[in-house]
């Protein structure tokens, strides 16, 4: 639809078109943004409502700033007071007063504060004494709604300004505070880090293995006229139709009997043979003109020389495509590792598997799970972005899923 029109209506159409595209793009990208920001959050922050895209941490001040010793102090904002206050004491006795002219307002004072007027007032059926209290220089009438305990605070900017307050001590003031340590912790974590290195190892081995077997097999199908070739090729083509679920149980039995349960070999060896990759390479080799080889044949070159010195360099695009598909397949695979790496031993796990177990087991490490998820998602996305050309062309022509 490369129809080009001009005029204000066309402009509006164009704006609407981009509007739709951008909207869809936001829907697509938003979960990734959530993933990245969550992976930079503190564990408490992840469980706060409303959700936020900004990683926040409880803001603290160094104790030395207030002339004290010890750990950094969490800060709070107090009702009726400007500025930020650091919590210096807990369980301080506090009297909660409510002014008679505004019963919703809460004023926290020392229990000794206030002077009884002798008068009483009935609140919710209870008779309460009326006090005179000082608030910001004004004296107002109030009743003491309860005696409780709260925090003692010091103004961060003015250590002489001490206050007591009734605030939820579990909700300190927050400030922008990403926690990149999540990633380094994943890196060094025995479970996640080890499964990351396993994933890398398995992926490399599968990709290289697939390339070698597919190049050799694809060349045989494309260029060597051997007995049984067509029958075998049909079998290869047909095998693409068989869903992996059918093979899971017998492959599991096979791995069990060979002794490869919980072994990385079970994640590598069965997957370095790919009918699809063989087919892909065969299609590419068939498209290379035969004249190119004929000169080499006249020079008495062997078939393997022709393959590795002439055909393979020409087949770079197909090889890149196959490597990309192999990478994504191996890196993202989950079902097979779930079946085969089934003991509690994390040594053989791959990243997807560890993430799924960690994510389900507890929520205590959810920040690490998210950092791990981001680490798991980044390489395939990068590979896709760099190899997009091969990728998009080939998904379109072959429809591999």
């Amino acid at each position, binding site marked *: *639809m490369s*129809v080009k029109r001009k005029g204000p209506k066309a402009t509006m159409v164009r704006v609407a078109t981009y509007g739709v*595209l951008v909207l*869809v793009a936001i829907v*697509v*990208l938003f*979960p*990734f943004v*959530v993933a990245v920001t*969550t992976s930079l959050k503190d564990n408490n922050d992840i469980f*706060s*409502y409303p*959700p936020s895209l900004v990683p926040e941490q409880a803001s603290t001040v160094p104790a030395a700033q207030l002339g004290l010793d010890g750990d950094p102090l969490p800060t709070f904002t107090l009702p009726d007071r400007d500025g930020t206050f650091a919590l210096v004491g807990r369980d301080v006795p506090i009297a909660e007063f409510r002014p008679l002219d505004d019963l919703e307002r809460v004023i926290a004072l020392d229990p000794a504060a206030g002077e009884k007027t002798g008068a009483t007032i009935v609140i919710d059926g209870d008779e309460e004494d009326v006090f005179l209290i000082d608030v910001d220089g004004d004296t107002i009438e109030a009743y003491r709604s309860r005696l409780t305990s709260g925090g003692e605070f010091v103004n961060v900017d003015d250590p002489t300004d001490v206050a007591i307050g009734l605030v939820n001590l579990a909700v300190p003031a927050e400030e922008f505070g990403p926690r990149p340590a999540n990633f380094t912790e994943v890196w060094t974590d025995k479970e996640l880090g*080890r499964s*990351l290195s396993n994933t890398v*190892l398995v992926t490399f081995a599968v990709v290289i293995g697939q390339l070698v*077997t*597919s190049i050799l*097999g694809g*060349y*045989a199908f494309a260029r*060597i006229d*051997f*007995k049984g*070739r067509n029958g075998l090729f049909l*079998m290869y083509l047909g095998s693409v139709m*068989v869903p992996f*679920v*059918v093979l899971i*149980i*017998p492959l599991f*039995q*096979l791995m069990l*009997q060979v002794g*490869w349960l919980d*072994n990385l*070999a079970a994640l*590598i060896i069965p997957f370095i*043979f790919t*009918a699809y990759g*063989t087919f892909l390479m065969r299609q590419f080799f068939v498209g290379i003109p035969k004249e190119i080889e004929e000169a080499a*044949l006249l020079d008495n070159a062997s*078939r393997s020389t022709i393959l590795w010195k002439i055909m393979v360099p020409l087949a770079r695009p197909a090889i890149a495509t196959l490597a990309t598909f192999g990478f994504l397949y191996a890196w*993202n695979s*989950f079902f097979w590792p779930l*079946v085969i790496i089934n003991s509690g031993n994390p040594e053989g796990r791959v990243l*997807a598997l560890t*993430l799924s177990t960690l*994510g*389900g087991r507890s929520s205590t490490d959810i920040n690490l799970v*998210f950092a791990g*998820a981001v680490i*798991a998602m980044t390489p*395939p*996305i990068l*590979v896709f*972005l760099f190899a997009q050309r091969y990728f*998009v062309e080939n*998904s379109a022509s072959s*429809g591999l899923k």
Partner: protein
Amino acid sequence: MGEASAIALSGDAPDATRAERRPDTPAEAFRRTATLLSIWHVIGAAASVVGMLLASRGGDQELPWMPRYALQGFFVFAFAVNLAAAYGIRTTARWARPASLVVNYLLAVVAGSTTLHQFNAFRALGDLGEGLFKAFVPFLVICVGLIAVLVAGQLAADDPTAPVPRTLRRIGLGIAAVAGVWFVILADPTGMISSIGDTLTKPLAFGALAITIGAALACRAMWSRDAARHFGTTRATEDTLSGLAFLSPNLIGFLVFFAFPLLFSLWVSFFDWKTTNTGREFIGLDNYVRALSLDISGADAAGAGNEVLKPGYQVLMHMDWFGQNWVLGARDIEFWLSLRNIVVFLVLAVPLAVLPALGLSSILASKLPGMKVFRAIYFIPSVAGVIGVAIVWGQMFDATIGWINYLLDVVGVSEAGQGQAWLSERSTALLSMVIVFAWMNFGFNTVLYLAGHQGIPKELYEAAEIDGANTWQVFKRITVPQLRNTTFYVLVTTSILALQLFDIVWILSRPEPGGPNNATSTPVLTLYEEAFQNNSQGYASALAWILFLIIFGFTFFQFRQQRDESTSGGVS
């Protein structure tokens, strides 16, 4: 090499240069090799007998039946063919060369695998993972170095005279080499070496190694042109040998890890088969009967339960047809519930993953600037990896702190704190998975559609423009009909994918996969639970084959359609 030697055989190519360098004529030289080869085949036959005895050992040395039968079968074959080859080589029979090559090749493969197994090479993969974990940073540096070498190669291919690629290549190799040393130091391979060292005392390991080397050398000798000439190999045989040789790494894997498991799966599905070797009983089609049995019964009241059904059947659903209440029951209620779920899922998820793709591809097919960027963005969810994606969506759907509820709250659809428990409520759990599935797959489908757009003749659009058709008319009258084949293909592939739904459910329906209360169980999940939690692998195999047949129905449908298109000259 095949064709080249075939030329030599027919006498077209001069071979004099090679003969001059040697004291003997090639034919005489090979005669001695042939003697050695026939002796080797006698050794091979003897080794097959030893291998047969080793493979058939009992007691705690007993091999599990799969490798045992495979090895026994192989050694019977190897014994016979070795003897035949020895005889054939003595008599210079034409078939001796293929026979010798095949048996030596397979012997090398089997003995080689045994050697690796004996030397703990497969278990050493775990140590390799451990080493990689310890030395991940140098590993990344090695990768950087190798990428530089690759880039240099690409640059050199573009412009062979430029000096930059050569420098880049050297730098890359240098970095990789330094990092390689660093890697080895950090990875500390002493553990791996010592685990190999432990096996140095095993005679079997060395015997297997010797056989491997012998068989490989024999293959090499027999592969030579001299051998081809000696045995008078025809060009056709030569081609078949070459073809099989090139295909063999692939073909062996195909047979062992695809063809055999496929047949074995069918075999197992006729048994009451546990994971352990005990309790394996042939029960014919019983697994299939159990899985597929349904019972329908009329009921007086709408709320009738299992009691109106045959014993062993449970209520699947109630129906109200022609003023009469019917109760449909199934023997394996969980499988049928999962089938029902997957049908609902299919009906919801497939259109949601396909229709937006159709619309968006029509926009992206225009030549407006920036379309490639959008195309790339839409594709990302389908490559990002389902586990990471599902974890993020799990958080988004969270009832109390999730983004979905928060956004609904912000736009005023729901009240704060009254959020929908998306994943733990029966009515919305499957719908949540539909959303994740569609989100993951519509971008891929968009790209499939974009390919379809390339096949639409531009003249159609030009004609429509001349006729003054508006955008909607063009979309409806030209784009959609022209993309009919693509739509068919996209629908089928997406359906096949949806039928195998597993990973998303596994992550999102925790803590009880398939929950709440079976609302999101899928056939693959049921199969997994039967096979690996209930330990009934025979029944699970039957489920796998039923699922396979359903999926195959879709594939077959697709195949028929494509064939019809191509015979009628359509573009598919």
